[in-house]
C-alpha cells in the first residue's frame, strides 16, 4: 500500500486522508492501523483528483480507487455513502465541469461495488466449499463408522438382535439367525417373545418389562430357554438394553447374547453331581446339609423334625469277604429299598458315605411316625438280597431323633442322632434307638467319671475300707474284705458300683486293681504286728484282671514286697470272671502261690458246676439276695430261699469249700445259716465297712 503513496503531496492533502479515515473508520473492520489507513486514503484522494483533471475524466483510475477501498476491507456499505459525500464535496473544488466530477464518482462507486460483489461471491464460494468439505468428511466418517459397525454386527460371534419397544425384531445378525435356526428375513418383524420357550415367556416379559420400564435400569440380563426353528429348546443368556431415540424416549431394544445350552447343561450336571452320590444316585451329604439348613430357616414355630441315621450292620465283613463289587451292589440295593420305603412320604433319603444313610423327615407328625418309619425301613432292609450267587441278609441299626425344630439346632440334632445310632449298635444291632436324654446324661456322666479316673489314681483320691468276715460258730473275726472307695472331687464319695463297671469297660480296672491289691496287702501285713493270729484280707479281682496272665506275677510281686503270707490273701472273683476263657491257668497259678480263691456272688450267675469242680477254689460267697430270704417276711414264702441256701451250702460242702454268707443283718439269719452249716458271715450285723485305722483299733 505504501506504493500508492505520492511523496510530492503537500501536508494539507494528508489531512484530507485523516478526515476520510475518521469518517469511515467505524464502518468496517480493517486490518491496518489508523495511520496506515490515513495514508492509504490520502493516496486515493490524490489519484481521484488526477482522474477528474484528465480530459476526458479517467474512469479507470476512479474504478481502481473504489476497488482499493474494498481491498482495505471497507465492506460496510456506509463506507461508500460516506466516502462519496466527502469526495463529492472535495472534487467539486476542481476547476472542471460538474459532469466530470460525477463521472469520476460514478466510476468510483462502480469500482467499489464490483469489487465488493466479487469479494462477496468469492467468500461465499469459499465458505460453501469449506462447508461441503466438512460435510463430506463427516459423511465419510459416518460411512466408515457405519461400515465398521456393520462388520462387527455381521461378524460378531455373539448374537445381536435389535427390536422396537413393542418387542418386534427389526434386525438380527447372522449369529442370532444361526442360534435360532431362522433366516434373518424370517426373524425380522417377529415378536421376540414368540421365540421364547412357552414356559419362560411370562418370566421374560416380566423381568424385562420390570427392569427396563419400571426400574429405569438400562440393562437387564436374562438366562432363559428359547425354541429353535427345529423345535429344540436352547438356553440363551441375553443382555437386553434400552437405547433411547433422538427424542430421549426409549427407541430401540438391543439384545446381545449367546447360546449357553452346553454351559447350562454342564452346570446342571455339575450341580447334580455335587448334590448326589454317584454310586446309588441318592442325594449326598451336601444336599442333605442344604435341605437341613432350609428346614431350619423356613420352619414354622410349631414344626417338628425327624432324622433317621441308618448304618448297615456287618457291611464291612461283606465288603472284606466278598469284595467291593458285591459290597457296592449291596449298597445300591439298600439305597433302592430305603428310597422306596420313604418315597411315598416325600422325605429325603441321602447317602452320607460308606454304609451310612440318613432320612430327613420334614413336617414330622411326632415320635410315633418317625419310629414307625424306622421299623418299616428295618423290615425292608432285612429281606435277603440276591446278588449273583450270593443270598445276602443284612440288618441295620437306626438312630432316631424327633423333636420340635424350635427346641434344637442342627449340630445338636446330628450329635444326638449319632448317639442314638451308637446305642442301637451297642444294644445289639438290627434295631432302632430313639434318642433319650436321660440315657445321654448317664453316658455323659460315665464319660466324665472315666475321664477323671487316671487323674484320681494319681492324686490318691481312691481309698480302701474293710468289712469284717466273721466265723458263724464262735463269732471270731477271721477276715476283712477290702472295698475300694473314691473321694471324687466333683461327685463326692463314690461306691464301687458307681465306677468299677466303667473302669472295667475302659480298662482302667487294671491299674486300679493293682493299687487296691498293693494297698490291701500292705495293710493286712501290718495286722500281724497287732495280734498273733491276724485275719486274712479278701480282695476283689475283676474279670478283666483275671483275664490278664500278668496277674500272677503281679500278685507274687506284691506278696514279696509287702511280706504278707499268701494264705492270708483271698482273691474274690465273680462266677463269670472265674468261668471266663483264660483264667483256669491263672487260678491254678494263684492257688499254687498259696492264695485262697473265692467265688463271689455265687448263685447269681450261670455257674457251670462241672467246671467249678475242676477250679482250685477254696470258698464260695453266697449272694445277699439269698440271705435276705432267710428273714421271714409276713405274707411271703421264705422257704424257697432257705432251701436254695441249704442246697448251695450242701453243694459247697460236697466240694469241700468254705461258705461265706453275705448281707447278714439279723441274729435270726445267723441262727439259720449256722443250722444249715454255713461257715462264715459278712454284713451289717458283724460290722459295716470301716477305715484302715479303725480296723487297727479293733484288732489291737
Amino acid at each position, binding site marked *: 500500500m505504501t506504493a500508492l503513496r505520492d511523496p510530492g503531496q503537500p501536508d494539507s492533502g494528508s489531512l484530507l486522508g*485523516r478526515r476520510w*479515515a*475518521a469518517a469511515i*473508520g*467505524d464502518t*468496517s*473492520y*480493517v*486490518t491496518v*492501523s*489508523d*495511520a496506515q489507513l*490515513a495514508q492509504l486514503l490520502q493516496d486515493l484522494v490524490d489519484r481521484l483528483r488526477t482522474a477528474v483533471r484528465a480530459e476526458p475524466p479517467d474512469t479507470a483510475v476512479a474504478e481502481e480507487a473504489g476497488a482499493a477501498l474494498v481491498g482495505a*476491507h471497507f*465492506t*460496510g456499505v456506509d463506507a461508500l455513502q460516506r466516502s462519496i459525500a466527502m469526495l463529492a464535496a472535495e472534487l467539486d473544488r476542481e476547476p472542471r465541469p460538474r459532469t466530470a466530477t460525477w463521472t469520476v464518482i460514478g466510476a468510483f462507486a462502480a469500482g467499489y461495488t464490483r469489487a465488493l460483489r466479487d*469479494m*462477496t461471491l468469492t*467468500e*461465499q464460494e*469459499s*465458505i*460453501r*466449499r*469449506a*462447508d*461441503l*468439505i*466438512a*460435510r*463430506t*468428511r*463427516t*459423511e465419510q466418517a*459416518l*460411512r466408515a463408522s*457405519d461400515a465398521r*459397525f*456393520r462388520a462387527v454386527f455381521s461378524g460378531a460371534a455373539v448374537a445381536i438382535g435389535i427390536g422396537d419397544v413393542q418387542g418386534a425384531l427389526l*434386525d438380527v445378525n447372522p449369529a442370532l439367525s444361526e442360534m435360532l435356526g431362522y433366516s434373518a428375513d424370517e426373524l425380522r418383524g417377529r415378536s421376540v417373545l414368540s421365540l421364547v420357550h412357552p414356559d419362560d415367556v411370562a418370566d421374560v416379559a416380566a423381568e424385562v418389562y420390570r427392569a427396563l420400564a419400571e426400574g429405569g435400569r438400562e440393562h437387564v440380563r436374562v438366562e432363559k430357554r428359547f425354541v429353535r426353528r427345529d423345535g429344540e429348546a436352547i438356553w440363551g443368556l441375553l443382555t437386553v438394553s434400552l437405547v433411547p431415540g433422538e427424542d430421549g424416549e426409549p427407541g430401540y431394544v438391543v439384545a446381545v447374547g449367546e447360546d449357553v445350552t452346553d454351559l447350562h447343561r454342564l452346570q446342571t450336571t455339575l450341580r447334580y453331581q455335587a448334590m448326589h452320590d454317584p454310586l446309588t444316585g441318592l442325594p449326598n451329604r451336601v444336599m442333605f446339609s442344604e435341605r437341613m439348613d432350609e428346614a431350619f430357616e423356613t420352619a414354622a414355630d410349631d414344626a417338628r423334625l425327624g432324622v433317621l441315621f441308618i448304618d448297615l450292620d456287618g457291611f464291612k465283613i461283606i465288603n472284606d469277604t466278598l469284595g467291593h463289587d458285591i459290597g457296592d451292589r449291596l449298597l445300591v440295593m439298600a439305597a433302592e429299598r430305603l428310597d422306596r420305603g420313604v418315597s411315598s412320604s416325600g422325605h429325603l433319603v441321602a447317602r452320607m458315605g460308606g454304609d451310612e444313610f440318613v432320612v430327613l423327615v420334614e413336617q414330622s407328625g411326632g415320635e410315633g411316625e418317625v419310629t414307625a418309619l424306622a421299623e418299616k425301613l428295618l423290615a425292608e432292609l432285612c429281606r435277603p438280597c440276591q446278588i449273583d450267587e450270593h443270598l445276602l441278609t443284612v440288618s441295620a441299626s437306626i438312630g432316631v431323633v424327633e423333636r420340635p425344630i424350635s427346641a434344637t439346632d442342627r449340630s445338636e440334632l446330628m450329635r444326638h442322632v449319632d448317639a442314638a445310632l451308637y446305642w442301637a449298635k451297642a444294644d445289639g444291632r438290627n434295631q432302632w434307638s430313639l434318642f433319650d436324654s436321660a440315657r445321654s446324661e448317664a453316658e455323659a456322666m460315665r464319660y466324665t467319671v472315666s475321664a477323671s479316673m487316671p487323674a484320681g489314681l494319681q492324686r490318691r483320691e481312691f481309698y480302701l475300707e474293710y468289712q469284717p468276715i466273721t466265723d458263724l460258730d464262735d463269732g471270731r473275726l477271721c477276715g476283712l474284705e477290702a472295698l475300694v472307695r473314691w473321694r471324687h472331687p466333683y461327685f463326692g464319695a463314690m461306691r464301687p458300683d458307681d465306677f468299677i463297671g466303667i473302669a472295667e469297660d475302659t480298662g482302667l480296672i487294671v491299674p486300679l486293681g493293682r493299687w487296691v491289691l498293693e494297698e490291701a496287702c500292705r495293710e493286712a501285713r501290718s495286722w500281724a504286728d497287732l495280734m498273733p493270729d491276724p485275719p486274712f484280707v479278701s480282695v476283689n479281682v475283676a474279670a478283666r484282671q483275671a483275664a490278664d496272665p500278668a496277674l500272677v506275677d503281679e500278685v507274687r510281686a506284691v506278696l514279696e514286697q509287702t511280706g504278707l503270707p499268701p494264705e492270708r490273701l483271698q482273691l474274690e472273683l465273680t462266677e463269670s470272671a472265674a468261668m471266663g476263657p483264660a483264667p483256669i491257668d491263672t487260678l491254678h497259678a494263684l492257688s499254687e502261690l498259696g492264695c485262697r480263691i473265692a467265688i463271689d456272688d455265687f448263685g447269681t450267675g450261670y455257674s457251670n458246676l462241672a467246671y467249678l469242680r475242676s477250679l482250685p477254689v477254696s470258698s464260695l460267697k453266697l449272694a445277699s439276695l439269698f440271705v435276705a430270704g432267710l428273714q421271714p417276711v409276713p405274707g411271703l414264702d421264705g422257704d424257697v430261699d432257705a432251701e436254695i441256701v441249704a442246697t448251695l451250702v450242701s453243694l459247697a460242702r460236697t466240694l469241700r469249700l468254705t461258705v461265706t454268707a453275705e448281707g447278714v443283718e439279723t441274729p435270726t439269719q445267723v441262727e439259720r445259716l449256722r443250722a444249715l452249716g454255713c461257715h462264715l458271715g459278712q454284713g451289717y450285723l458283724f460290722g459295716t465297712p470301716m477305715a484302715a485305722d479303725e480296723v487297727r483299733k479293733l484288732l489291737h
Partner: protein
Amino acid sequence: MEQHPASDVEPERPSAARVYDYYLGGSHNFAVDRAMAEQAIRILPELPGNMRANRAFLRRAVRYMIAQGVRQFLDLGSGIPTVGNVHEVALDEAPDARVVYVDNDPVAVAHSQSILEDVPRATVVQADVTDPDTVLGQARRHLDLDRPVGVLMVALLHFVPESAAPASLIARYRDAVVPGSLLAISHGTADQQGDRGPAMEALYSRSANPLVSRDKATIERFFDGYDLVDPGVVFVPLWRPEPGALPSATPPERTATYAGVGRLR
C-alpha cells in the same frame, strides 16, 4: 444404519465462527448465521463494534508478543481466520513465526485449511479447546513447547461455563508452556453496563452458545501464575492503543469487553 442424505447444502444451525465473520463484515456465512447475528444486533447494536474491537486487540496483542520476542502462537477458538488473522499479522512482522489455530467447528477448520494451503508456517487443528490433552498433543507437532508460546484466548472464555472449570482449563495450558510465554485474554463483561447489563445477560443466556459474563476481578484471577503487563486488565480499546489511532466517539466501556496480557513467571 440408514444413510444420511448428503443433498442439503444449506446448514441448519448457525455457527459461532461464521456469525463472528459476519460481525466483521465478511461473507463467509450463511443465511442462518446472518439471521442469528441480526437478531443479536437488534438487542445489542454495538455488537459488531465490540467484535471489531476484539479483533483489533488480537492484532495489537500479537504485535506486542512479536515485539517481546515470541515467535510461536497458539490461537484457541480461532474461528474463520479471514481478515486480520494471526498468521498474517505475525508473519508480516516476523517471517520466522509459527501459528497453530485450534477450533472444533468442522466448517471453520475446512476453510482454514484452504486458506493455509500455501502457508507452511501456519496450521489448523480440529479439537475442542476444553480438551487440553488433545489440543496440546496436536500443537506439540508444530510448536516447540520448550520455547515461549503466545497463547491467545480472544473472545473464547465467555463461552466456557463455570461447570467446565475455566480456571483449571487455563492452568492446564499454562502448565504446558515455559516461563516467558505470554497469554492474551479478552472476555465479555456486564461491568459498568448500567441498564444494559440485564439485556446482555438475557441475550447471552438465550444464545445457542450461551455466554458467561465475568467481572474484572475474576478475569484478573485467570492470569494466575502470570504477571499482567501494563495496563493490566482494562476495557479492550484501552489496551495499548496504537500510536496515531483516531479518537473514538464511543466510550471504552461500551465494548463490554475486558482484555489483558500476562507473562508467565
